[in-house]
């Protein structure tokens, strides 16, 4: 188990990581999700031991490893750039961490072939990395991290430089590979959809802080605060400041929506309501839907579905609606909010009520 205890990193006058405590179990996949500069890489460097924390300590399997050098920690790292030895073959690249350890020839051969099979590199073992595609180069780097048999594997946006489809394929394979290894995996990404596809646990990060940590789908469905909800939304979260009064959410004294049952316990007063773009639709079929009049801005069609950007009472929203809707800009349309999925946050950003658990 890897434990961060009140770890903090301050460089000069900038706080890269605010005091953070986190415990990661063996055999788990943990996603760090947040925008660029939110502290993902800084936190990983602290976990790896590439940086020493300004305050706090790092524990591994009950031992304090705060000052222990990277070389002595059993850490493997995969970066956004494809980092391999350009002069060595794929085989030698994968074998390199074991050669350093001084493993015998037979073991090396067995492990390299196993990793190559897992990552579909068997046909390319005799090539050098520069003669491979980007996806194959990154697979080589991943294979090297896996044969190292490290107890902690850190992946810093490993798929960011790959083609969309390759990313999709690797994303599907990665959890299987991870499950087979038994190490602690930490995976940094800027993309909410990537976190959801990988599953496991997610820690959402914002400005050097972990805003929430838990099972990926739980963090997505029941964010503790507005910041987490925003970080974990792609397309962006739709939100609006309202006042709860007499069983209605009102804006500027006009009633907008009836308060749905799961939020009925809320005290009257100001709050922020929020929901994901796919809970906004053009049809009123969903049982808990409430109609709103909104003005359209731009429609984007993505094959089977459309993103319609709309403006409602000064808030910019996105509607993700199945089917093709090429709506003229500046038109007045009726949209329906599926209020069963409405989230509510207090003025301090804390979650006040979340949608009822759907199929836990």
């Amino acid at each position: 188990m890897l434990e961060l205890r009140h770890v903090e990193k301050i460089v000069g006058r900038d706080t890269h990581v605010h005091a953070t405590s986190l415990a990661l179990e063996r055999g788990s996949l943990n996603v760090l999700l947040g925008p660029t500069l939110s502290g993902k890489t800084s936190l990983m460097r602290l976990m790896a031991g590439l940086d020493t924390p300004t305050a706090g300590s790092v524990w591994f399997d009950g031992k304090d490893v705060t000052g222990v050098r990277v070389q002595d920690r059993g850490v493997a790292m995969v970066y956004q750039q494809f980092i391999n030895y350009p002069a060595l073959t794929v085989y030698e690249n994968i074998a390199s961490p074991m050669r350093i350890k001084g493993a015998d020839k037979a073991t090396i051969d067995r492990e390299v072939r196993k990793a190559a099979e897992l990552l579909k590199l068997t046909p390319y073992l005799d090539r050098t990395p520069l003669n491979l595609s980007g996806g194959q180069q990154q697979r080589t780097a991943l294979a090297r991290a896996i044969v190292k048999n490290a107890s902690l594997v850190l992946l810093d946006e490993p798929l960011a430089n790959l083609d969309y489809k390759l990313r999709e394929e690797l994303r599907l394979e990665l959890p299987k590979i991870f499950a087979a290894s038994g190490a602690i995996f930490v995976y940094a990404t800027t993309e909410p959809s990537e976190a959801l596809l990988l599953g496991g646990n997610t820690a959402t990060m914002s400005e050097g802080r972990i805003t929430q940590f838990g099972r990926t789908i739980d963090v997505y469905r029941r964010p503790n605060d507005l910041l987490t909800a925003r970080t974990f939304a792609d397309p962006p979260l739709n939100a609006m400041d309202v006042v709860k009064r007499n069983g209605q959410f009102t804006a500027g004294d006009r009633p907008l929506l009836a308060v749905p049952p799961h939020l009925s316990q809320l005290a009257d007063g100001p709050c922020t309501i929020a929901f994901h773009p796919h809970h906004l639709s053009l049809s009123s079929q969903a049982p808990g839907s409430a109609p709103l009049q909104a003005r359209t801005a731009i429609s984007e069609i993505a094959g089977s579905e459309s993103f319609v950007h709309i403006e409602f009472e000064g808030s910019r929203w996105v509607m993700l609606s199945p089917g093709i809707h090429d709506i003229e800009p500046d038109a007045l349309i009726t949209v329906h909010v599926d209020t069963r999925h409405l989230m509510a946050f207090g003025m301090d950003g804390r979650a006040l009520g979340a949608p009822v658990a759907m199929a836990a």
Partner: protein
Amino acid sequence: MARITLDHIRHAYGIRPSAPNDYALREVNHEWSDGGAYALLGPSGCGKTTLLNIISGLLQPSEGRILFDGEDVTDLPTEARNIAQVFQFPVIYDTMTVYDNLAFPLRNRGVAESAVKRRVEEILEMTGLADRANRKARGLTADQKQKISLGRGLVRNDVNAILFDEPLTVIDPHMKWQLRSQLKKLHRQFGFTMVYVTHDQTEALTFADKVVVMYDGQIVQIGTPAELFETPRHTFVGYFIGSPGMNVLPMQVDGATAVIGGERIDLGFAPSPKVAAKLELGIRPEFVRIGREGHPVRIDKVEDIGRHKIVRATFAGQSVAAVMPEEDEVPADARIAFDPKAINIYADSWRVERGA
């Protein structure tokens, strides 16, 4: 703005090409209309950047001609073609201020300073860089720098076309949404002819009126986002567009029925493909229903990805993906059904027209 004609363009890097495989770009013969928004979509190495560079004049095609509004520009250098281009990584002039960066293309062409000011201020407003106008460009973050690059591409309103080479690669997801819809708005407002190169289907589909799907140096389909989704001409298009991509299942035809393994699926029409061709049935995961009706199926895995679930299943020995709404549950004795209207038939990877 201009109509772009690609007249039998082929390109090979390096040596004299002999076989079709020597060409990075095999044969492109198309006309793109004035004011259209086009996306070139494909995996790396498919020739999309080669084609873009031929349009911008950074590359001379080995064969063929390129015309802007009917005028042959094949031998014209980039600067004489009057185009704008935005690159994958931000290209900014470090020593200049943000304002001067944006003014640069105009000043180089001797535009009067009052007109420069008006135009640059518009762009500053549009890109949200107004408060940084007088800062040196060097100290900005990657996405601010890329906004400058975008801004420099948009600042001239007399260009024949604006070309984008994966411009949102370095941008955070949230910012992508904002910039993309801004680009789309600008396109509607000014009617620039825009060509956008990307490997990201969402970017391509949402940006363009017409998406040009490229594969292995060839254009495999040009179509609206809806066409590419509903009737992919080639199995590659089916695979590349959509997430997960289209299910492609090897099959036999028996009249108006498809036979996969031991299962028979009604097609609603009798395809008449070439004899001895490799036949496949294509259906998007969005049109595969997992419920209580249909054919027997084994459920392998259910991925809850928030807005919907992806069900991975085995049907007649083939893996099949299905998309299921957020609220729905996989029933205990699950069965699989395919929406017959959404089935496409492929012979040797190319789509067989209905009634053909």
